[in-house]
């Protein structure tokens, strides 16, 4: 009796342990549910596409590109906060400001985020550092600074060995490298160049991305409290940073532009049948773009094209849906500079989101990552172009007829 009772209890309490997963033998032993994938390039699926420029400008970009090839050059520029005339001495029970008697040297520290790699030879690229006028700002152009990117204003050169791909770089230069340091109210401005026998680039993280990505350290002699001269250092952060480069060739007015600095975005408005977007399960959607010209930029660089959904389509002032659609970079695509072939951008998450939300406009935003982080720019045919208009290739599973009684 006790055994029977225990058996019933054991059987009852383990009742959830089940396994009914088995191989499907279709159609003989399957319900009449059909799963079939269709794939089609929907003609005239893209309409009223447009491109807008100026979303992010160089001096608020999260990275600055230093680069040089045969046709174009890009130079980051930095203006640092003013150094004080004195340096704080002491510690523990208090500090006291003592005047700086002499500046021995400066150390520039940069943060490298990405670079071109050229491992063909033993030659090492260098980033020459130039002294610039202390009044540089966002209106400064590369033409304005051309006289300063000369050997006579070079204060140091930072080597860029192939072993360094993402790291901190630093270069030291003497205190007398800035003859107008006092007249400039202790403000230092610097520019970077790229020196190598072959085209290349390096991306420097700016203060808009990380406040202490670039700093300048001063090593100075200070009149100590007891009359002795001591060596101390102080640090300033970037007050302004940007990069300058010659303007790219003007785009075709009908082209769809993505990238560059100031950054351009493209809006693709999509007209897909409701039987696909609303009723079917889209398993893959690919936006097919045909370049009007080779992707512009420094040889070896690439543009990362990101496709995102819009919350509202208000033209140039449309707001992007950041999450959860393609924020994970599902639609990000690296396209090398010089690329002339068709570019395929995955937009599956975006198209699927349209099914679940009746309010989302059927518009796709295309931009580069990071915006205005390099001079690279891709230009594509639009729906107004005579050939090579953008289209969407879509793979979908029609509504599944789930067994509902038979």
């Amino acid at each position: 009796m006790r055994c029977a009772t225990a058996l019933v209890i054991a059987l009852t309490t383990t009742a959830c342990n089940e396994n009914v997963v088995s191989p499907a033998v279709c159609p003989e032993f399957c319900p009449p549910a059909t799963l079939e994938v269709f794939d089609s390039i929907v003609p005239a699926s893209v309409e009223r596409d447009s491109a807008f420029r100026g979303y992010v400008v160089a001096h608020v970009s999260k990275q600055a590109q230093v680069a040089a090839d045969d046709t174009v050059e890009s130079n980051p520029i930095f203006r640092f906060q003013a150094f004080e005339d004195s340096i704080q001495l002491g510690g523990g029970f208090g500090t006291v400001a003592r005047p700086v008697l002499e500046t021995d040297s400066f150390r520039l520290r940069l943060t490298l985020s990405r670079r071109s790699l050229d491992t063909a030879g033993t030659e090492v690229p260098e980033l020459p550092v130039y002294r610039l006028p202390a009044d540089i700002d966002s209106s400064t152009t590369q033409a304005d600074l051309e006289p300063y990117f000369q050997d006579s204003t070079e204060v140091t050169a930072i080597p860029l060995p192939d072993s360094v791909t993402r790291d901190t770089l630093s270069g030291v230069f003497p205190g007398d490298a800035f003859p107008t340091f006092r007249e400039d109210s202790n403000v230092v401005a610097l520019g970077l160049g790229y020196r190598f026998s072959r085209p290349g680039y390096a991306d420097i993280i700016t203060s808009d991305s990380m406040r202490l990505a670039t700093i300048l350290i001063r090593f100075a002699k200070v009149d100590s409290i007891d009359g002795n001269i001591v060596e101390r250092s102080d640090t300033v952060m970037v007050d302004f940073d940007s990069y300058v480069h010659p303007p790219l060739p003007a785009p075709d007015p009908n082209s769809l532009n993505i990238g560059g600095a100031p950054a351009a975005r493209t809006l693709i408005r999509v007209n897909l049948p409701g039987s696909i977007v609303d009723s079917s399960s889209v398993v893959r959607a690919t936006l097919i773009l045909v370049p009007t010209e080779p992707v512009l930029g420094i040889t070896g660089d690439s543009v990362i094209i990101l496709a995102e959904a819009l919350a509202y389509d208000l033209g140039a002032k449309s707001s992007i849906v950041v999450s959860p659609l393609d924020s994970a970079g599902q639609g990000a695509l690296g396209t090398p500079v010089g690329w002339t072939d068709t570019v395929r951008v995955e937009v599956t998450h975006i198209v699927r989101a349209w099914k679940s939300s009746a309010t989302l406009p059927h518009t796709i935003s295309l931009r580069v990552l990071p915006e205005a982080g390099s001079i690279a720019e891709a230009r594509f045919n639009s729906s107004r172009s005579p050939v090579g208009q953008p289209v969407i290739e879509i793979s979908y599973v029609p509504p599944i007829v789930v067994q509902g009684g038979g």
Partner: protein
Amino acid sequence: MRKVHVLLLALILTAPVVAEAQSSVYSPLGIGFLGRPIGTRSRATGGGLSSFDGRSALNPAATGGFRSLSITGSIGTQLRSYSALGATADGLRETRAPFGQFGAWIRGTPLSVSLTYYPYADRTYNLIAIDTVDIRGDSVQTADRIFSDGTVADIAGALAYTISSRLSLGGAIHLITGSARAGARRDFAHTGYLSAAEQVNLGFNGLGFSVGFMAALMRQITISAAFRNDNRLETIADSVAFSSIQLPMTFSGGLLLRPLPGLVWGTTVIRQTWSDAAQDLEQIGGANAYDTWEMASGFELGGVPGSTRIPLRLGFRYAQLPFSSSDQPHEIDISAGSAIDFAGDRAVLEFSVERIFRKGGGADENAWYLTFSVTLRP
């Protein structure tokens, strides 16, 4: 001891079992794999006693056998394997609640009532298919999953009128209800493709009635017959009418013999007109539907005063299955079981063991089915 009984009943009634029937390789076909309106005692005799057993719902006249309040709960565990058209599956198992009943005699009257639950059809399956499809010029491996979890349930309210010790009549209303969550999903091995999935919540509605009688021709011979007619099984998918399937008429008859004291031998034959559903199933792409015959015979030895206290039950059953994509399948069922009365016959613990062989339509399925039930007569 009373606390133990209450605990047992509470465990059974609140157990984490799914209130469904046993499933089968045939579950995805037709309206599902049919359940059996019988309790553990009848199961142990193959179903041979089901026409006469008050703790079954085949014949409402059998409800007249109640002489007190009776509450029955049961659980069943199935272990099965099958091979079908080259595919095999082993180690399949599930535990369900195949039968529950509340029965009582209305004191001072010749009337008895019962409220019975059993799964009319099981709608549980989880099928996986691996395949390769050509998309965009590439061969992409896919994994399809077609699943359903739920049941079509029968809740029957029966009233029996015992005219005399030799004759009782009965009638019942059958409320056919239940729900299932069904769907399909396709996953791609290629990371460029997202999964496609769809799921619906199905609701089932139907109504039926049954009538029957049970008559003792002499002390050793009792016969019974019952007729049941169900209307249509309406299926609602996410609040939208999806399908309507004609349910069958059921004719059953039984012969009960008592050749020796303590020996009861019962035979039951059932005919169901499932071909009535064929046209409706064809419209929704379902399987073929065939009329079915079922024959069960078994005996119970002991368990009554003057005999052994613990009865021995054995039975055999042959049944045609109604749904198939090709030829009509059938099942053969060999069963055994027993029961233990305790607490002065106020509680009965019953169990049955069935060995089931199903064959037809290209499949071969074997199963063990274990059923336990507790009946309280407070």
